[in-house]
């Protein structure tokens, strides 16, 4: 077994997910602490140009796996090539961002590697023996549990987007290892007929420095117009509590909290929001 810390470098249409760069930053920190390497596993088709970007964000090694069958994400295709790679190189830790794809892929891989998987972590650490300490909220954000996987390797976790710090992009050196995947059409048991975008301009709340949020106290959708004005003036984004989203005053992609987005702004202005635990859980600094 190696001591290396791996991340799944999730890309969609040739663009790396910001949350993957965040866990890469965390992997680098853990690797430095445990005297090992931070490695990114990049899967797709015609994505080799992303390798250097991963290195510039902290990857010591990039495992590059390309095939036309891996053009689009499929649980079967991606898990097959990932499991083959993990069996060969035996990492100590594998991190996934807890996106819809990460949460689909990680349990499938953990099950195939017969190891544990901790969900939606908000804090990670590593001890002298290389044991990963994984902290995560549960019971609707009412508690924080710290979880270990003492006997099985690799140790696997999904990490909540918006919580970890990505490293600034710098010219760095790293190794790119290209792997020829063993994959055939029969391995993939689903067919993706269509991909439909429903949110035209996905709100970049996770990256905003200023957030102006509204809740039930706004009394109606009109209040959000005012908040938008203020957010614009401050160069920020508009957020919302679940109460405002459920009332239909603003769309779900603005929701902050336990069941919405996790944010790390410098300034958070809450208007007509009571500060329920599940709302405050969306502020990564508080966790």
């Amino acid at each position, binding site marked *: 077994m190696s001591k290396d810390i791996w991340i799944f470098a999730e890309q969609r249409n040739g663009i790396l997910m910001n949350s993957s760069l965040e866990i890469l930053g965390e992997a680098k920190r853990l690797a430095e602490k445990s005297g090992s390497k931070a490695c990114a596993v990049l899967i797709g088709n015609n994505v080799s140009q992303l390798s250097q970007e991963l290195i510039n964000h902290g990857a010591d090694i990039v495992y590059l796996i390309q095939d036309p069958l891996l053009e689009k994400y499929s*649980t*079967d295709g991606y898990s097959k090539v990932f499991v083959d790679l993990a069996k060969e190189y035996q990492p100590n830790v594998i991190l996934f961002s807890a*996106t*819809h*794809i990460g*949460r*689909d892929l*990680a*349990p*499938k891989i*953990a*099950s*195939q590697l*017969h*190891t*544990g*998987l*901790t*969900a*939606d972590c908000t804090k990670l650490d590593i001890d002298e023996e290389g044991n990963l*300490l994984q902290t*995560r*909220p*549960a*019971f*609707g*954000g*009412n*508690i*924080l*549990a*710290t*979880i*270990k*996987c*003492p*006997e*099985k390797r690799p140790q696997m976790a999904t990490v909540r987007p918006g919580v970890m710090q990505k490293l600034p992009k710098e010219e760095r050196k790293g190794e790119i290892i290209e792997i020829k995947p063993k994959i055939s059409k029969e391995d993939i*048991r*689903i*067919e*993706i*007929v*269509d*991909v*439909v*975008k*429903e*949110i035209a301009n*996905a709100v970049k709340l996770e990256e905003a*420095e*200023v957030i102006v949020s509204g809740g039930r106290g706004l009394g109606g959708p009109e209040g959000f117009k005012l908040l938008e004005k203020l957010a614009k003036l*401050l160069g920020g984004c508009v957020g919302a509590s679940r109460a405002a989203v459920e009332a239909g005053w603003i769309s779900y*992609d603005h929701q902050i909290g336990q069941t919405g987005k996790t944010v790390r702004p*410098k*300034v958070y*202005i809450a208007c007509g929001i009571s500060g329920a635990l599940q709302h*405050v859980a969306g502020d990564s600094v*508080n*966790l």
Partner: protein
Amino acid sequence: MNIVVLIKQVPNTAEIKIDPVTKNLIRDGVPSIINPEDKNALEEALRIKEKFGGKVTVVTMGPAQAEEALREALAMGADEAVLLSDRFFAGADTYATAKTLSAFLKTVSYDLILCGRQAIDGDTAQVGPQVANKLGIPQVTYVKYIEIDGDTVTVKRTLEDGYELIKVKMPVLLTVTKELNTPRYPTIRGIFEAYQKTIRVVTAQDLGLNPEEIGLKGSPTRVVTIITPEHQRETEILTGGTKEVVNRLAEKVLSALK
């Protein structure tokens, strides 16, 4: 068509309070419910059965009291209910939970297995995919729409910014979100009939499972500590005339952004 719905009984986490002194969760008096998204899974199963015929079986792994959840599912219209219950199942993480559930599922025939996306207590969303893997069948997660034609299932799988339209052949396991449908309420007659039915109870021995490989002992993950987060805040209340307060607030915001 044989449809199996995996349901979990959970404490209603919206009603959990923290003891201000001990900082423990106060679980007494917190009602147990069927995990909300599992009800969406059951509702969909009932609709599919109403359209195509077949049988809906609900299965849960849990303590004896999880029978209540199964009775409620029967009252909604499920045909059969199975309780996997044994002290050796206790303390299972998702790996061991999936092992036990799949050991049972291997003993029955199914075309479709439906799960909730995520349980509101454990919050992991891992059990569905892990069961699918153990059974060697495909999975589709975060499903918000299902259509069936022959042995092909067409679903909408939610992504952060839209969805994928996916076709897959049965048998398949789907995990569903609350956008899928609105669960029905049990009828009086349904409730009455639910109490006439027997619930099958299955133990580790019935499934030929080794006690060392299930429950807490068979779980690779260990919870080492649990704390209730405390939010430390410093509060300052600005008072005075509107103009004065607004100016001071603006100063604070601007200085925080420097």
